[in-house]
């Protein structure tokens, strides 16, 4: 009962914390925001992202003098799918500008991701709700210029940054001692698509797109987890110009990963949110794969699942 009670109290305290803080509070005192003009070539924008160690950036349309959403890994997935559907359009893909990404979305029939945004002085709780509703993993903070009422992108907040802010500032995370297996939403075993090292990378990319997930676990023939292909790995693939070699295996595609990749996080059903939040505090954890004692894949816990549980669980 004590653990049950502490879990409820801890979750309640974290919710109150999220309601009492604004997105503005998460921002450092000084920081940099990289924005891309939509007339840039998609290829050039990829170079800029990789050079600045970022995987996403707000877009600025200088024709309308407004912001045109966010460039994310999903856009590069769309470009690869477009090339796969229309291989004769190689030249078009090479000359594609960020303005053209919307046409690519229409050409492959994928729904336009409406970028939800929020004012920096709204509560973190509201930012989380908006992100969960829009299935986005990041949300632009938009205000307006006091004189001209033109939009300003103040920053872009990610689920990871919010959870890290909670892990750094909420001591109540230490009270979350219930094992994952007893947590609704986190311990529920999901039906997740997997692949093997020999699977052609284009099939994995289709899975990422059609299942709207940001990673596909790679298992061996006993179902043991051996690696994960993530949406952000696409950037390295496109940068290497390797998207044209579509029967490349996912095992080979992973060789493009930068040497400083920190590895895939795993846990078991006996782990608890207290230690998960502590791991988020210390390292860049983007999801956790639940494995059994033999290392076989059981399920996955995403940052959305953790936010969902914190906001609406218990």
């Amino acid at each position, binding site marked *: 009962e004590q653990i049950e009670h502490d879990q409820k109290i801890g979750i309640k305290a974290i919710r109150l914390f999220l309601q009492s803080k604004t997105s503005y509070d998460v921002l450092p005192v000084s920081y940099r925001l990289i924005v891309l003009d939509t007339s840039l070539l998609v290829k050039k924008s990829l170079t800029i992202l990789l*050079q600045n160690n970022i995987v996403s950036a707000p877009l600025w349309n200088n024709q309308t*003098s407004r912001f045109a959403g966010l460039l994310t890994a999903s856009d590069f997935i769309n470009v690869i799918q477009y090339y796969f559907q229309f291989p004769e359009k190689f030249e078009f893909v090479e000359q594609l500008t960020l303005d053209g990404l919307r046409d690519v979305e229409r050409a492959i029939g994928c729904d336009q991701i409406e970028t939800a945004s929020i004012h920096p002085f709204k509560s973190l709780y509201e930012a989380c709700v908006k992100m969960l509703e829009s299935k986005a993993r990041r949300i632009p903070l938009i205000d307006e210029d006091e004189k001209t009422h033109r939009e300003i992108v103040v920053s872009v907040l990610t689920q990871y940054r919010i959870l890290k802010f909670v892990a750094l500032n909420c001591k109540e995370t230490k009270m979350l001692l219930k094992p994952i297996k007893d947590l609704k939403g986190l311990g529920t075993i999901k039906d997740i698509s997997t692949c093997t090292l020999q699977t052609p990378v284009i099939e994995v990319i289709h899975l990422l797109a059609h299942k709207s997930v940001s990673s596909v676990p790679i298992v061996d023939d006993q179902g043991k987890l051996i690696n994960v292909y993530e949406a952000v790995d696409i950037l*390295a693939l496109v940068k290497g110009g390797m998207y044209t070699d579509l029967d490349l295996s996912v095992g080979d595609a992973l060789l493009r*990963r*930068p040497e400083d990749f920190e590895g*895939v996080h795993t*846990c*078991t059903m006996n782990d608890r949110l207290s230690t998960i939040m502590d791991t988020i505090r210390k390292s860049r954890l983007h999801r956790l794969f639940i494995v059994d004692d033999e290392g076989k894949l059981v399920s996955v816990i995403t940052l959305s699942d953790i936010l969902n549980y914190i906001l609406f669980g218990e």
Partner: protein
Amino acid sequence: STIAILPSSLPSIHRAFMMELNPNQLSSNINPTPTKKSKTRWHFGIRSRSYPLDVMGEIYRALKNLGAEWAKPTEEELWTIRVRWKYESGDAMQENTPNLMKMQIQLFQLEPNNYLVDFKFDGWETSTGTPQDSFKQDLDEVGSFSAYPFLHLATRLIMELAVNS
């Protein structure tokens, strides 16, 4: 806690694993994305080694090509250009939205034969030409200011100068 990093997902171990799986295969010549980022070098304004009068001439010519206007320079401020620039923004902004951006462009000498052209935002005016009196309010008190129109026009001017030169 049984939270761990999956060893086979670390790049060096994955690479060894792939080499073992198919030794003479493609794997050997697929290189990892370089992690060292070429440090972007930032400068204040733009640098120039041209003769000061030539630089000023280039700037006035570029401003003219871009349809900007400027105030006649005073004797004391020969090396400063006070620019006013209609900011065409496609979206229908309310009439009273000021769309004349003011900018100050100033030439500085860093050392003999080494000059720097600095660009500074200098407020908005409505097209009726009356300076936004509320803009008399010191820029410093403005709490939320969009830099994008300024960055965009500065970019266009720098590109015009780069293309001309």
